[in-house]
């Protein structure tokens, strides 16, 4: 299988911030790669380089077999870009937006009119096709945005945080659409802050943080990286939390993670039932009122935490390694 996207030792600096630091990755043709990381991880910068919007400082990238920086014009005929930053015109109707993009892909008039109609049908926007985009809901806008990126029928699609800010139902609809495109053979590189999204859509996941690639693999491979299970304890009384953390910490090798909203402690463990029983006994001996106690498989969130030292949900504040403003 040939690579649709190849990235070798790519770096990009904005002032004092190293937005991309020696990033290398590969996406096989017809597959989906998710770039997972918080704001400021460098995901959008990488997408901007690969869509010819930004010149890298050093390194090499090839898209559809063509070199970034040399064959940008050719690459632009092969790619589609959608997501939080690429957008559609608010004052134009959905159809006008799609037809304009079709014209700029240099399709003839009949062809772009036909494709715009097709895309509106497919994205279930046909009723709203002749209304201005400013009257659209968030989900309709994203669907139109996705439709616009598909008008040129690009074999490679870049989706920059395609579902950020959408409600769960709309997000599921969009996921189904993306899955359809993949089934038709489109190569997709998507960026996301959501573990669930990466796990749901992608064949492979690249975890980024502070401009680095910190891990790469399938969702299962990344979970195996933790090498075991996660122990979870919920206490009834918040005042017991500190004592409970100390007790759990003495049983496990890693630092337990605390969720103050749920009064919950979680910690990666190597063993299984034995640790669970030991934890139960220790908490009981300590006189702590335990509401819930159990073992579960690690989530990608746990993996991310163990790789980077912070969670994905912590947003821009979650990149202690990055100095200066986030260019993401």
């Amino acid at each position, binding site marked *: 299988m040939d690579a649709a996207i190849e990235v070798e030792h790519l770096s990009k600096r904005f002032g004092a911030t190293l937005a991309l630091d020696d990033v290398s990755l590969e996406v096989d043709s017809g597959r989906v790669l998710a770039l997972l990381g918080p704001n400021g991880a460098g995901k959008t910068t990488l997408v901007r380089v690969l869509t010819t919007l930004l*010149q890298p400082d050093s390194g090499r990238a090839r898209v559809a077999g063509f070199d970034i920086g040399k064959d940008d014009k050719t690459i632009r005929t092969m790619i589609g870009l959608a997501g939080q930053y690429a957008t559609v015109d608010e004052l134009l109707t959905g159809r006008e937006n799609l037809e304009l993009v079709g014209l700029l892909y240099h399709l003839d008039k009949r062809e772009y009119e036909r494709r715009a109609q097709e895309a509106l049908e497919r994205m279930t926007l046909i009723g709203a096709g002749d209304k201005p985009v400013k009257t659209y809901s968030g989900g309709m806008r994203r669907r139109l945005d996705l439709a616009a990126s598909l008008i040129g029928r690009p074999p490679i699609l870049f989706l920059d945080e395609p579902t950020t800010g959408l409600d769960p139902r709309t997000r599921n609809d969009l996921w189904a659409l993306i899955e359809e495109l993949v089934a038709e053979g489109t190569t997709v590189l998507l960026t996301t802050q959501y573990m669930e999204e990466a796990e749901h859509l992608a064949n492979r996941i690249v975890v980024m943080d502070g401009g680095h690639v910190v891990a790469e693999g399938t969702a299962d491979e990344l979970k195996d990286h933790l090498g075991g299970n996660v122990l979870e304890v919920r206490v009834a009384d918040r005042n017991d939390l500190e004592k409970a953390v100390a007790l759990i910490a003495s049983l496990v090798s890693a630092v337990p993670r605390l969720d103050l909203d749920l009064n919950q402690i979680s910690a990666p463990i190597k063993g299984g039932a034995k640790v669970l029983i030991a934890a139960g006994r220790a908490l009981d001996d300590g006189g702590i009122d335990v509401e819930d106690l159990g073992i579960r498989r690690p989530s990608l969130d746990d993996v991310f935490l163990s790789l980077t030292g912070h969670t994905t949900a912590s947003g821009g504040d979650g990149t202690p390694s990055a100095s200066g403003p986030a260019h993401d």
Partner: protein
Amino acid sequence: MTDLAGKRLPTRAAPLTIGLAIRDMKGITKRNLLRIIRTPQLLFMTLVQPTIILLLFRYVLGGAIHVPGVDYVNYVVPGIFLEAVLIGGMTTALALATDLQAGMIDRFRSLPMARSAFLAGRTIADLCRAVLALVFIICLGLLVGFRFHNSFGSCLAGVALIIGFGYAFTWVYAAIGLAVKDPQTAQMTSILPMFILFFASSALVPVKTMPGWLQPFADNQPASVTINSVRALFEGGPVYHDLWQAVLWCIAIFVVFLVISLNLYRRATA
């Protein structure tokens, strides 16, 4: 419909021909004209401002200003024609900063379109709007007593010069919009060159009445020489010295800011 994402074999893109670039430009121009038509309130505001200036200097201040050898209404109105075109140009800066911030420019730059077509389409749509504003303010000028005294050809040349100056200046606004990146700042920033060029010029009062230190600037800056030649073209009288200076200014402003704007567009980041 299953072929919506049908795979295509990678082949090097066909080179962009002039024909395709012009087609891209037409598409972008149409988009921008639709945007202008669909925000009539913005169009309206760009007409209100020169209307106020015109009425102010015709009826409120005009009575106190005496320019030897010419009726004041005929002295001041050609300058306000130019101002009407310049003030509308501010929307170029606003529109480009808005497109940049919203991500429209990212969208267009990721498409295989001709890159120069985006800015050309922007400025040509704004030129159409400027012509509309000029027609409006000329009608208003005629209504308040302004009259063309020269031959039809000369007057037409005067109008053409105003339009040419306005178009050249659109590229200054384009550069401002792409450089400051924020719609509010773009609007504020573009007021500045307009005010300096319009008020420190021969538009409202003769330069000789200004303090000595200001005269060299006010005498030679582009808006003054343009207004002087437009006035001469409308009124009759010697025109050539100012005219060639005005035309040179237009060409210089156009070329310099075209190059700056295209460069800014090529590396545009929101």
